[in-house]
């Protein structure tokens, strides 16, 4: 099964390369990503689906798509979705589903991916739900044309959702104890997703609803060298703000307009302590546009605008170890970019166009409406 999947991925990648167009996307302002030296104005040159250069002279004979006054940003990266899974990616019969790969059950052509694309999400991680302590693995998917990448991600859950009456663990304490025992045992051997996560070869996202378990897990992660990303429950839990997350990623959201003020303050509080705050929509449980809305709500609760933008682009990409490929417009990165009518963290700004791998994947229809 594995070789077939890789072959499929390669074929897809080859197809994408062969037909990707060269294009210059020109706007009024480029927000290329944290740490990227970009001229304030000009165009993004995309060649063979990758960012070639920023600003400067355009290559000869290349199409130039002009969006006067627009703001260009990298495509958004959502670390946690269940898109294309037909509401059926949450298995809880076993507490540890060591080698389940949900991508084999995902419909990469599902219209939910289009919905995410129109929300500005160009890369998303499709994962199992929270029903098992170790739910198996998923992976990074481009939302346009179902291009699957080779970046698998493990999924864990230390929350009430993973507890059941009819199997262990039945309590949060036991869930952590079991996970620790198995992680320590699996550290040396095994080719399944769980072992790969235990060795630190695979990044893993863990949903937590209890600050105590979150702290224990962070300690364990440091001791074992795990590549752990905590996803904090959006339920009001003020103690999350104390988590020791210097330089480490943490996933926040989804938040809606009715979110508790305590919850909404947490991204700003964690960012102040040095955490790399990322935002998610958990689509389709929530609408994909909830990712940006979560960042907007965090800004209204004290998070700085550059940190919020990084939380939609660069920070989640770095959490996956893909900080040079996605969530950035530095030369060599994937040609995934968004065209906005204004700064994306000004709520009223409109998404005007989405490019994925240098292709115009979506653009806003004329004001008269027309097909969705």
């Amino acid at each position: 099964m594995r070789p077939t999947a890789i072959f499929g991925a390669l074929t897809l990648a080859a197809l994408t390369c062969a037909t990707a167009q060269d294009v210059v996307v020109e706007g009024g302002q480029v927000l290329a990503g944290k740490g990227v030296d970009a001229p304030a104005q000009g165009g993004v040159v995309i060649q063979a689906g990758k960012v070639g250069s920023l600003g400067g002279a355009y290559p000869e004979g290349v199409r130039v798509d002009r969006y006067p006054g627009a703001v260009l940003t990298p495509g958004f990266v959502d670390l946690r979705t269940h898109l294309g899974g037909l509401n059926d990616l949450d298995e809880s019969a076993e507490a540890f589903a060591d080698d389940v790969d949900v991508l084999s059950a995902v419909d990469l052509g599902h219209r939910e991916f289009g919905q995410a694309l129109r929300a500005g999400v160009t890369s998303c991680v499709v994962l199992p739900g929270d029903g098992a302590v170790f739910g198996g693995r998923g992976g990074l998917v481009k939302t346009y044309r179902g291009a699957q990448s080779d970046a698998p991600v493990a999924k864990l859950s230390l929350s009430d959702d993973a507890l059941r009456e009819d199997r262990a663990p039945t309590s949060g304490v036991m869930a952590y104890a079991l996970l620790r025992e198995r992680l320590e045992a699996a550290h040396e051997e095994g080719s399944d997703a769980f072992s790969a996560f235990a060795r630190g070869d695979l990044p893993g996202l863990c949903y937590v609803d209890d600050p105590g378990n979150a702290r224990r897990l962070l300690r364990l992660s440091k001791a074992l060298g795990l590549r752990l990303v905590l996803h904090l429950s959006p339920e009001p839990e003020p103690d999350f703000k104390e988590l020791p997350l210097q330089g480490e990623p943490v996933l926040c959201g989804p938040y809606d307009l009715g979110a508790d003020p305590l919850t909404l303050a947490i991204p700003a509080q964690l960012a102040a302590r040095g955490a790399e705050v990322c935002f998610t929509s958990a689509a389709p449980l929530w609408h994909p546009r909830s990712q940006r809305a979560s960042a907007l709500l965090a800004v209204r609760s004290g998070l700085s605008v550059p940190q919020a933008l990084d939380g939609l682009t660069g920070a989640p990409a770095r959490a996956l170890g893909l900080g040079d490929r996605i969530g950035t417009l530095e030369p060599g990165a994937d040609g995934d970019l968004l065209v906005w009518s204004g700064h994306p963290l000004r709520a009223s700004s409109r998404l005007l166009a989405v490019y994925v791998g240098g292709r115009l994947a979506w653009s806003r229809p004329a004001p008269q409406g027309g097909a969705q």
Partner: protein
Amino acid sequence: MRIRLLGCLVALSAQLAVAQNLVIVNAKIPDAPGASAVLVAGGKIVQVVKGRPRVPGRMPVLDAKGATLVAGRIDAWAAVEGNSRLGTALDGFDPYDRDFIRLAVSQGVTALCLTPDHQREGSNGLAAVVRLLPKVDGAQDRVLSDASALCAGLGVGEGALTRAERWAKLRDDFAEAKRYREAWLDYEEELAGYVEELPEVAAVDSGTPQAKPKAKAKDDGKQDAKGKDDKDKGPKAPKQPPKDRGKDALVRVLAREIPLRLHVERVADVVNALELADEYDVRLVLEGGREAYLAAEALSKAGVPVVLGQAIPPTASGAQPDEYARGESRGRSRAGWLELYPLRSREGAAALLDAAGVTLAVGTGSLERSRFVGLNAELYAADGLDPVRAEAAVTRTAAEVLGVGDRIGRVEQGYFADLTLLDDDGAVVATLVGGQIAFRRPAQ
């Protein structure tokens, strides 16, 4: 002009201790292009002028430093928990909840339209419009309207047949209310005739022809038994129909005194609502309307405004929005129907309604979301609605739809000084309610 203004201030000076007086300068005021200052006295806007107005004495000055001054945001749909056929949504809100008010004004929200929730079908009580005054002593004008509309719901998450039954029930309610109203109109007419025929009463009250005879006649009505004994001696007193408070609210709708406000999402229900409004000649306001864009032309033609809820649907499919899911205890059917037949919500729906000429107000659908109604309107703009319309949908248009457009929603002389200052990023710098500074952003 200035002299008149001075006079006005002198007249108000007696109130100075309690009244809220203030000058706001150096503001950009989209409602009054060219003007940059607002003079507030007694909690109201007295003048909107260019430059720095000359004011007597020690009037506090708020320097906007170039920020944009707009009317405070109004949540046109702040559903409270609970409902009552005979009550008002005011009962579901604590107007002195300081924590709630502090959070709301920090986001520029200064007024709410409280509505009942729609867990129960049929009439669910009256909507009310309240201002979020930060201090208890500002109790006057806290409630702008205790009957902004009569609210009703059909159970959006229900199946087609259940909703059809509820439509039938609502129509029956209206038919009964119409008969009830006619019975009372007939009674009043008969009563007037009866009073005229009473020679001695007419003689005594000849000085005040209208009001008093009615009062007397009512007494006579109560003494019906006595009247029967003397029936040869004079005309028979008409019999008073029974009173029904529930129907009285519907009668106010039938008399076009207040609108009927219906929570509907599906286009079939929008069409039914328009038919009902047409049949009984009532004013209609729709709430929700995720599928209303499919009937945009009809809504525009009928002049029916729509109060929109959350710009971002709670779920990707539009199914199980939390305001419907609350009724889960009623069984699985509710969630099931929305999952099987998701609402046909679409991106850009608000822009389509606007393009067709439908009047739009924006709310949040829940008291706990109210503080972010401004953000919600901006998200509608992000979804394609014209930004100026989106802004109006939480200020002037919202106020008009709620029937309080003469008092809030504008930066204009005579309006309440419920104002908010926004920086260039759209963040709230300060909020005033009744001229009092209710929120000021801490220095950064």
